[in-house]
């Protein structure tokens, strides 16, 4: 399998590795900084001395968060939210995208549905009416309030239907002629060959669920039900200097611990670092559709 490489190619390969390594360093920097902060003493952090290496190394902040049941509780909520949200969202996206990926002659009402979806991508009633709807539907203060309202993302539907469309027409046409119905074709033919797109949209959905915090603040009244990013948001942005007075400032030293915040941010990223490589194998080229087709 030796392929002859030209000198120019060799230069390119070296530069390529260098560039990508640089990009990696740039992307890794914030995380390393946060990690270093989390392992430093608070006074050093407050003095701004920490860059990429811990100053006055200590594990205090990790000990501190280990004692915090809220942190782990919110971690659990986030996991539940991601699983539930992704399963529901992906199912709806597959169903919608499959139907919408049909050519007009196979699905005559398609063009009407396009508008139904498209409008929701740009127009929204805003926070207050949605809040009122969520309250009156009865899902306020439950995990469903985080999962259902955004379950159908037109962006993802479009993304996935484009992947579906790139599949060879013949693949489904012959099955239709053989009398298979759409549910069978979707489940048995289209979905199995669409793993890269499922992984992509799945990843986006998971990431969005993992990252979002605002809906938690608004649609949950019970702090014990907060997902982690909602919980973290309060930790990160808790100081409003203008409203401080003597009674609240006394405990400020304990609260404004940059190091503890850093430790929590760091722990919050770990799951992504674990899940990503698992999904990643679907993006690595080499496992082509062509090879699956056979």
């Amino acid at each position, binding site marked *: 399998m030796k392929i002859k490489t030209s000198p120019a190619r060799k230069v390119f390969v070296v530069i390529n590795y260098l560039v990508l390594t640089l990009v990696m360093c740039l992307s890794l920097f914030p995380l390393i900084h946060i990690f270093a902060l989390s392992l430093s003493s*608070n*006074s*050093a952090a*407050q*003095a*701004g*001395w920490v860059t990429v290496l811990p100053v006055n190394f200590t594990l205090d902040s990790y000990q501190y968060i280990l004692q915090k049941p809220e942190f782990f509780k919110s971690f659990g909520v986030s996991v539940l939210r991601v699983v539930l949200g992704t399963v529901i969202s992906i199912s709806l996206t597959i169903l919608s995208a499959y139907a919408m990926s049909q050519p007009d002659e196979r699905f005559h009402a398609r063009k009407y549905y396009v508008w139904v979806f498209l409008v929701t991508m740009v127009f929204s009633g805003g*926070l*207050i009416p949605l*809040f*009122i709807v969520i*309250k009156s539907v009865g899902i306020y203060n439950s995990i469903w309030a985080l999962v259902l309202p955004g379950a159908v993302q037109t962006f993802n539907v479009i993304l996935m239907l484009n992947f579906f469309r790139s599949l060879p027409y013949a693949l489904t046409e012959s099955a239709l002629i053989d009398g298979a119905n759409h549910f069978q074709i979707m489940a048995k033919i289209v979905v199995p060959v669409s793993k890269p797109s499922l992984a992509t949209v799945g990843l986006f959905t998971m990431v969005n669920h993992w990252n979002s915090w*605002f809906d938690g*603040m*608004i649609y949950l*009244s*019970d*702090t014990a039900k907060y997902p982690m990013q909602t919980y973290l*948001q*309060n*930790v990160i*942005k*808790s*100081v*409003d*200097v*203008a*409203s*401080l*007075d*003597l*009674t*609240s*400032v*006394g*405990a*400020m*030293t*304990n*609260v*404004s611990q940059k190091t503890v915040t850093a430790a929590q941010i760091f722990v919050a990223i770990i799951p992504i670092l674990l899940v990503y490589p698992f999904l990643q194998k679907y993006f690595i080229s080499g496992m082509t559709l062509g090879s699956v087709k056979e």
Partner: protein
Amino acid sequence: MKKKLVLLLAAAMLAGSLAGCGDGADSSEGGAEASGGSGAGVSEDGEVDPRFKYDEPVTLTSYFEISPAIAGDWNQETTLNSVYYTRMTEETNISIDWEWFAAQTPDDSEQKKSVAIASGEIPDFMIVNSSQLSLLAKSDLINRDIGKIFEKYASEELMSWTTGEGQAALESASYGGEVIAIPLVDSSIDMLPMMWIRRDWIEKLNLEMPKTMEDLYNVMIAFRDQDPDGNGQDDTIGMVFHNLFLSAGLGDAVGLFNGFGAYPTIWVKDGEDKLKYGSIMEENREALDYIAKMYQEGLIDQDFSSNDEVKASEAAASGRAGIQYGLMWNANWPLNATVQNDPEADWVAIPIPSATGSEAMPQTSPRITGYVVVNKNCEHPEAVVRLLNFFVDKYAYSGDEYNDYLVEDSNGVMTFPLHWVMLKTWFPLKNLTIHQHIVEALEKDDASALNAEEMVSYNDIQKYLSGDIVTSYGGMKTFGNDMAAFDTIQHYYDNNLFLMNEFTTGPTPTMGQKMSTITDKVMEYYTKVIMGIESTDNFDAFVEEVNALGLDKITEELNEWYANK
């Protein structure tokens, strides 16, 4: 059955002479009260007992906001089962049903409250900020008679706390002539700007504490150039400074402007009994030129415009800066971090330097921490007042009973659980009085005259004096007797050295629409001048511009109010 009766009673009362508030329980304990025509706690002869107890349990719904100061280890059970809440229910028969518990941050509790207001579903009572109050003022959601109810049921002590600094607090809660919310007050003199400075550096460099702006300039130059931290590196600057320099807190410039007789962001008298906006006063020119020079000469950080308070305070914590304007609590946080990195660090508070030849007058505004609004459907609006009475009684006038309420805070100190109480208010001179008593006790070396609350601070100072300077830094530097924060406030207070914001009403119509654009413009112009992009030569043009943005209209409206005041 009972409910019906209550409603009937309420109707009867409405028909009577009282303010139109539905009031369910008639307190007939002991049979002293007449059977009709009087509200809770109202005796036969119309006397109101502010410490009344309902016959039937009354439950109010509300929201619980968890202060960031206790967020770290707050526990719901402990709070609700605390002596404060159990005794509150015992003595008043009122209990509170908290609809949610959320962190007191702009993102969390403030958002939740705004959304609740906008969607029109508010609890029996809630504490709102001034912009939420102005939205509610337009709506039909709240009880507009609460001002009268407050007047009727407030204990003498509660009333004196609320009006401790005049009628300003109540006025700021009035819309269309009615007081529609109960203001929760705090101390305005506690908000007076002062200067924090490293005494160890002053002594090391053989300098004097700055009294004039010129002194200050020389001290800053010395701090910058003469290596006060002695590390042999040219790494020090003159002063902590950040991008929100017009909001008093830490590392701001309010005190600096005041040193020039300029009063940005507040409304002051122009000498002819008219109000004008402090940010466009002529005196600001000089102050701005001064800061611009500081910037140019590297006395403040070159990237201050990207740094907020917390970021800027790194300069103090790391020992890069030895001067900052700020408030009385700065030594509790974040200046206490300096001593953790450098045991020599000795921050002291001094009155702000002046450029005018006479002593400078720092500025302050009536301080209102929130407004209590009551749902118009709440059957017992007076219960809210009763709870405030309860707080004032127990917090300030309960004698030995005070000790029953104490809980251990995160530093292991026993304190009154102020953060567990939502309905709380303040006495303007409270902290200053604590300081006076402590100083006296320190001089006499006798703490027997101190009350329980003062003892907490006194013990903290004793710990500092016995060598524990790191954990007790804040206590000593705030309430102590060695150039502490309240020494400076005492000085201001004794010599009447403060200028009050004259703006003490609800926002005028144009204000609601235009004021944020104007403050925005001011910040933009000021920042540009400081960074040398703009010049004070164009100050007149700047004044003209903000006037055109609506400030002249606002000034007109305010003066109309002021003239009729």
